[in-house]
């Protein structure tokens, strides 16, 4: 019986609901020490030494001189030190590591750092270093502006966002003769392994990385775990004992990555009928102190910057620059939420300028099969912008409510968006992921490094394999991600696990089926022993991409979404409250509808938090509100009822027609909310749209004031430029 498309029982069983699931902090090893990180306190300067003002008995102390290999956390670049040796680039940089078996004694130890402060650069506009610059050009921009009746300009900005996985970062390094095992909360075991190999060099022959139960990631456990893992391993090597480091919430918020803050400028030519003739977009992202994944965050950001719209003449310029805050990094959506926030608020401003309604202006420009994107990618039949837009407008009663709420403290707004599934450009080719499948006495076992972090990886992959092999779902087991057992199937990011890794497993299953010659896997196993197959990624035929020109097929395919938010403005507190939310999304086909719905509901809630509540306040380059008391994420009372619709438009290149769903839901909520606030009469172009910001926002004159609305002069510009 087919399991794909049904809500089969999850592979996790009941462990998460009974407390039996063991997360990093729940693991203990004999002789285990606790580790602590001593960090810089100035955002820029030099370290001239340190004083240990405590009795060192029973302590292990590590500094940069204890690193046997390269002092860096290797990722795209090797610019980020594991431990500061001299130069300080942000105010939460690790300098020293301490370990002790008693946690209280450990945290009572006093250390003084001798730091020399220099003046930091905290405004990305004045940065002196560009990590990455990208231009995307299609057609002839000036020609496009020549065809326009009106030009609409605007600047839109988005703030940093903290992931707030409820389980803070945590790892345990366990040394053994000739080797080291690292257990921890993470999305990408092989990223950790690669970073540890560079850090430890020849000193450790054998390194094994094992994912423990992971209490949420959202991108926050994509690259950061390599840092905390490095620290635990250094302490374990020196002490020859297992070392656990688990961050407290405050340290996790101060020291780890955030979503890149962004400022996006649009200049758009439109005809009086609302057709786009030219789009000029400038994207500036704040990368923080080190490169981390910034080049690829920018890449996804600029590729999505023109939105899901048809336009012949486009120029997109993007750059991500260095400032002296902790480095920003991966966060669900990976640059696309920032740029699509901008283009979607801009589209409403275009509609306001022309006196058109938001649905009409989008319908006139929405990408259709056969259209080309900014990078020149020709879209296939699985292009659903119009379908999701019509369904969301119909379901929400958009046009009717738009009229009904006009002039009141209520508003309704929408956003249309898309999201490329899998790595950008040539990313998947360079990754060359592998996935394996082997027979067992009971059936088969999946061998992949893709991690289950709440989204349902194990269940969804087992469904694909079961159906591809024609066996029962219950006969499919999934190996724990352990680099000594599973091949490198790439990181668990970029909405790629289902489409790319699931696709590899579908191919594994097809090959295994041939070799089984009619036998059930368990029968084959009993007669002939273990059968093992492995597949490696190969790009779909005809897919073209140039990293030099940024032209070609940026993604294998795209998912499509349309969100509608209804808001009520409180005249006393100036809060905007979302009262109803409709999310219509097409991502090929859901493998497990309940899990897929969970991605949409959860991602939407995270997007609503980013839109209204979540404000990372930096003071002198340090997060000043690093507490859940002051950095507020949505609770049950802040989250509106959600109407989720999953439309089906199978993608032939994905397993059973599936694309990716993890990230897309966070692309739409912020602009839908801000557009609803605009409908309620406030000119907001920046998020989070906190009460303070709404209090200062200029009132909109109404839709019939095109001359005023078309320029960015006055208080609106000041607001957006913050």
């Amino acid at each position: 019986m087919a399991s794909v498309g049904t809500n089969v029982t999850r592979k996790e069983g009941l462990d998460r609901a009974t407390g039996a699931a063991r997360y990093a902090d729940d693991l203990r090893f004999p002789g285990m020490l606790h580790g602590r990180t001593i960090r810089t306190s100035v955002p820029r300067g030099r370290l001239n030494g340190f004083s240990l003002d405590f009795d060192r008995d029973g302590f292990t102390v590590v500094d940069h001189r204890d690193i046997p290999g390269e002092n860096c956390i290797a990722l795209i670049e090797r610019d980020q030190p594991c431990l500061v040796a001299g130069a300080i680039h942000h105010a939460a940089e690790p300098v020293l590591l301490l370990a002790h078996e008693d946690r209280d004694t450990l945290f009572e130890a006093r250390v003084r750092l001798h730091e020399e402060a220099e003046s930091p650069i905290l405004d990305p506009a004045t940065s002196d270093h560009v990590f990455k610059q990208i231009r995307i050009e299609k057609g002839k921009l000036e020609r496009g502006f020549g065809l326009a009746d009106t030009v609409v300009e605007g600047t839109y900005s988005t703030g940093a966002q903290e992931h707030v996985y409820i389980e803070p970062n945590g790892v345990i390094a366990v040394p053994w003769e000739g080797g080291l095992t690292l257990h921890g909360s993470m999305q990408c075991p092989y990223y950790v392994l690669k970073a540890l190999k560079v850090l430890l060099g020849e000193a450790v022959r054998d390194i094994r990385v094992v994912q423990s139960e992971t209490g949420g990631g959202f991108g926050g456990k994509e690259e950061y775990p390599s840092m905390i893992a490095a620290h635990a391993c250094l302490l374990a090597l020196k002490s020859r004992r297992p070392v656990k480091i688990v961050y407290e919430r405050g340290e996790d918020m101060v020291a780890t990555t955030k979503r890149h803050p962004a400022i996006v400028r649009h200049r758009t030519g439109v005809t009086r009928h609302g057709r786009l003739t030219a789009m000029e977009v400038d994207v500036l992202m704040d990368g923080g102190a080190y490169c981390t994944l910034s080049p690829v965050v920018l890449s996804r950001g600029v590729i999505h910057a023109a939105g899901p719209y048809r336009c012949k003449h486009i120029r997109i310029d993007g750059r991500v620059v260095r400032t002296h805050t902790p480095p920003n990094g991966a966060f669900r959506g990976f640059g696309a939420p920032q740029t699509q926030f901008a283009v979607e608020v801009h589209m409403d401003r275009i509609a306001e300028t022309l006196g058109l309604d938001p649905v009409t202006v989008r319908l006139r420009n929405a990408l259709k099969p056969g259209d080309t994107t900014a990078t020149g990618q020709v879209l296939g039949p699985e292009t659903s912008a119009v379908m999701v837009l019509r369904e969301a407008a119909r379901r929400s009663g958009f046009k009717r409510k738009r009229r009904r709420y006009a002039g009141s403290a209520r508003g309704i707004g929408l956003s249309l968006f898309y999201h490329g599934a899998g790595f950008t450009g040539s990313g998947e080719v360079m990754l060359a992921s592998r996935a394996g499948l082997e027979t067992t006495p009971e059936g088969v076992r999946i061998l992949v490094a893709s991690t289950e972090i709440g989204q349902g990886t194990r269940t969804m992959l087992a469904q694909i394999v079961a159906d591809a092999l024609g066996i029962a779902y219950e006969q499919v087991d999934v190996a724990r991600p352990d680099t000594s057992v599973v091949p490198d199937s790439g990181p668990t990011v970029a909405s790629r696990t289902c489409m790319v890794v699931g696709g590899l497993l579908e191919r594994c299953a097809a090959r295994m089926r041939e070799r089984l010659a009619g036998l059930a896997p368990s029968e084959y196993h009993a007669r002939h022993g273990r059968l093992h197959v492995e597949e490696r990624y190969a790009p779909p035929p005809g897919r073209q991409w140039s990293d030099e020109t940024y032209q070609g097929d940026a993604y294998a395919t795209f998912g499509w979404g349309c969100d509608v938010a209804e808001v009520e403005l409180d005249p006393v507190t100036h809060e905007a409250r979302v009262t109803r939310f409709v999310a219509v999304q097409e991502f090929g086909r859901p493998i497990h509808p309940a899990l897929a719905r969970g991605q949409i509901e959860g991602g939407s809630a995270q997007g609503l938090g980013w839109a209204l509540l979540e404000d990372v306040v930096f003071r002198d380059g340090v997060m000043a509100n690093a507490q859940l008391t002051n950095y507020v994420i949505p609770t049950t009372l802040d989250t509106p009822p959600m109407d989720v619709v999953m439309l089906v438009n199978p993608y032939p290149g994905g397993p059973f027609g599936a694309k990716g769903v993890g990230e897309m839901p966070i692309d739409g909520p912020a602009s839908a909310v801000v557009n609803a606030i605009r409908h309620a009469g406030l000119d907001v172009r920046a998020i989070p749209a906190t009460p303070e910001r709404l209090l200062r926002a200029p009132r909109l004159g109404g839709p019939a004031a095109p001359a005023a609305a078309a320029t960015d002069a006055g208080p609106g510009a000041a607001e957006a430029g913050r």
Partner: protein
Amino acid sequence: MKLVLNGEPRELDVHPLRRLLDVVREDCGLTGTKEGCGEGECGACTVLVDGEPVVSCLVPVAQVEGAEVTTIEGLAGSHPLQRTIMDEVGAQCGICTPGVVLAALPLVESPARPTLARVREALAGNLCRCTGYEAIHRAVLAAHAERHPK
């Protein structure tokens, strides 16, 4: 000091100001109770004290002298909410789940069918970053229906 932990009388030799959370996790080895923030904001460390949900990271153990403390292990995996929360995908990563289950328990056990507003209110102190709460609400209502068949 004495308390009743998951139905069993316990005598513990611990500092009276030690957090109930640490006593449960470290002294009693019951790691189903999770620490998410250490400041009473996230609710991951929720346990029941004499049937009422409390955040164990803010409770010095002396305050529960003689009380009945229930942790997630005390449900022994047999409560319907533990199944419905998995089936409805009200648990994704699961780190908030023990706290959510215990916070919702009084509502699920009470015979009156709760309104959605009442469910939201009861769980307002339990942060979940994965689900957007909708599936948790569905799980609570489903468990209530199971516990109190018409």
